[in-house]
């Protein structure tokens, strides 16, 4: 008896649901210029809190949390009744778990995703849920391979793909050695799509310039001992060394490099995943002081980058970490796109992401987010100038700012040397 009454309730609810959805669609789906908006937008942050990239999850989530705070403050300042909410889930650096994490945050109402951090996880989420539902995803995965899959225009990346990063590294090494001709560069990389992709792109570009390559030497990130690898990388005293690695593995490798007694940090060039300032405690400082790093966008030297550094370091939680600024920008882009769309509908948000990323439109940084929202509501086209760079999504949805910072560690801090433009 009770059961049948419950079934009756279910039937009633089922009958009412489409009607309710219709009302919701009418209410939220009309992009209206001017006037006040009233909706809650949920941003889903799917990051590797555990697994191989476990060290990246917490700082990335902190960056997106800060972005949501900024969005809420700006919405209030602009007089809008839009609230931004964050739901986070752990991708475990594993494609299967990443898909579950994405499903979880989407079930909790997320209409725009920041993260995940690797290409295999991004592809699992894309094919499993976001492509079909037109939900925008802004991963911090940088493998060029990600663009081999048709994403239906749903994947945008605020960090430049690794092929550009490799070109920036080539330019930096070439400048230091005078020319590439007959100069030997030894490559060490973590055996992952990120490391291998970057190592191979660098190798091709360097040999094309007449340079020689030693290795590349790949290593498994889970090993306790890297002495043999270090000896192989430093054999025959190469002119420079390039590493594509993440901090927790590189900490172990760097100690082994120093123990060989043949390691010269001024010959070392590393990619953005290691471009962390100050030097994290897990990496021996002697391995990085004097070494050089290329880093996506313009994270150093712009006023918004300096402001973000203050904002991030004064907030509780972990210190600065690779790609934190990119994750922050991804969160802001989600929120601004919803304001531009005037709705919390995934497809409407997706349609706005490219429009607000430049290169045309009135430029705003995150410190003027309230003004940016007002401008959007007044029908003005805006260009969000990110902390990680000018963004300017290209046809594929990757940031087209091929600008990289070349910096050198001095007394534990990265100091900007100059900018390298990888675009012809």
């Amino acid at each position, binding site marked *: 008896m009770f059961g049948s009454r419950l079934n009756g309730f279910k039937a009633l609810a089922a009958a009412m649901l489409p009607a309710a959805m219709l009302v919701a669609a009418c209410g939220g789906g009309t992009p209206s210029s001017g006037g006040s908006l009233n909706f809650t937008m949920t941003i889903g942050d799917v990051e590797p*809190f*555990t*697994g*191989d990239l*476990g*060290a990246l*999850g*917490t*700082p990335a989530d902190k960056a997106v949390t800060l972005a949501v705070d900024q969005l809420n403050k700006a919405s209030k300042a602009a007089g809008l009744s839009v609230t931004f909410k964050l739901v986070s889930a752990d991708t475990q650096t594993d494609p299967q778990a990443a898909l579950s994490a994405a499903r979880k945050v989407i079930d909790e109402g997320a209409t725009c995703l920041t993260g995940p951090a690797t290409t295999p996880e991004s592809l699992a989420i894309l094919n499993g849920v976001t492509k079909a539902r037109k939900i925008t995803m802004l991963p911090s995965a940088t493998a060029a391979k990600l663009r081999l899959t048709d994403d239906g225009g749903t994947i945008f990346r605020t960090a430049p793909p690794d092929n550009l990063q490799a070109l920036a590294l080539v330019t930096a090494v070439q400048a230091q050695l005078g020319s590439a001709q007959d100069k030997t560069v030894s490559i060490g990389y973590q*055996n992952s799509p990120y490391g291998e992709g970057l190592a191979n792109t660098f190798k091709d570009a360097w040999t094309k310039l007449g340079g020689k390559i030693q290795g590349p*030497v*790949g*290593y*498994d990130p*889970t*090993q*306790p*001992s890297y*002495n*043999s*690898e270090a*000896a*192989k990388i430093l054999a025959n005293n190469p002119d420079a060394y390039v590493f594509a690695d993440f*901090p*927790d*593995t590189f*900490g*172990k490798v760097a*100690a082994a490099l*120093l*123990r*060989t*007694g043949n390691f010269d940090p001024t010959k070392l060039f590393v990619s953005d995943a290691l471009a962390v300032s100050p030097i*994290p*405690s*897990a990496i*021996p400082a*002697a*391995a990085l002081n004097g070494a050089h790093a290329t880093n996506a966008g313009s994270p150093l030297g712009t006023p918004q980058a300096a402001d973000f550094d203050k904002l991030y370091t004064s907030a509780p939680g*972990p*210190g600065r*970490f690779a790609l934190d600024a990119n994750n922050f920008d991804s969160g802001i882009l989600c929120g601004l796109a919803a304001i531009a769309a005037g709705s919390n509908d995934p497809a409407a948000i997706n349609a706005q992401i490219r429009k607000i990323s430049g290169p045309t439109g009135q430029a705003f940084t995150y410190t003027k987010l309230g003004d940016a929202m007002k401008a959007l509501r007044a029908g003005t086209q805006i260009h969000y100038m990110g902390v990680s760079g000018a963004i300017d999504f290209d046809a594929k949805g990757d940031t087209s700012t091929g600008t990289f910072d070349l910096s050198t560690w001095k007394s534990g801090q990265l100091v900007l040397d100059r900018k390298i433009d990888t675009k012809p």
Partner: protein
Amino acid sequence: MRPPRHPPFLLMLTTASSLEATPSETAGLGLSTGVRGLALLGGAAVVVLILIAVKGYQPAAQATANGLVAGTYFALGAVGLALVFGVLRLVNFAHGDFLTFGAYAALLANAFFRLPIIVATAIAIAATALLGTILELAIWRPMRARRAGGLQLLLIAIGLAYVIRNGIQIAAGTEPRSLQVDVTSAVSFMGGIRLGTTELTVVLVGLVVLVLVAIMLSVSRLGKEMRALADNVGLAEVAGVDTGRVIIATWLVAGGLAGLAGVLVAAAVGVLTPQFGFQLLLSLFAATILGGIGNAYGALAGGLLLGLTQEWSTLFIDPRWKLAVGFAILILTLLIRPNGLLGRPALK
């Protein structure tokens, strides 16, 4: 109900007779174990000589030294695993996370409370031994009392591994951390072999501890009781061994060894994350199985063999495949000797 204690001579008789009757079937340093150990050492020496002839002295000697370092890590971690399996027939999937637990306990004492590393190590050993004992009293003993099957125990162990790992993560976060140890200074010896001073300390301490454990197992009363339990629980009980006490002692020793291994390896490696022990676990299992399941000397031999073959292989092939080489050797060894290098033949 526990059987009443018998006079000690009966125990001595039982273990002594089992030693004499089937020396190869005990976990002790029987004659054949010693001979096989010597044969292994000889084999390793021949390989080193061949490598020197092919690749030159310095690279071959350096790879061998690197292999000894890695092998000591594996052996130190594996011996506690082997002990628990030998005495309790429990495949302790949480053993890797015991190592992580010990390392983080030392980190707390060393990096947070600024205690010297030796004191921190002692704290880590005590804390991990305590963890093992608490888990025995709270989980393993009640489960055995209810006659839980091997699969249930295995699943509980896997579950515990996650609970410990995520607990550490909740408390300490995921960022890579380091003990206050110098991991970059190195010494040269024997004509151009270079090893880190911390690595060298860890190898020496590790080998001494492993030999002490081996002596404890073969000589001390507790060691004999453990081996009696490993051979036949029923017989040991009848002979008056207080099984509950011996099992607690086994967890204290295995936990303490895991804590020590965690600190030593984390100190020498230089980077500590909550994944640290779990990432090692597969190699620890490999060392245990390679050496002979449940055999403490086997864990030592297996760990060293795994470390040496992995590092030797880097002389010839891309180091990123060294894990595959190590495990290919494991499979080959088991094809030839299904019970491992120093393993006992299957019970008749």
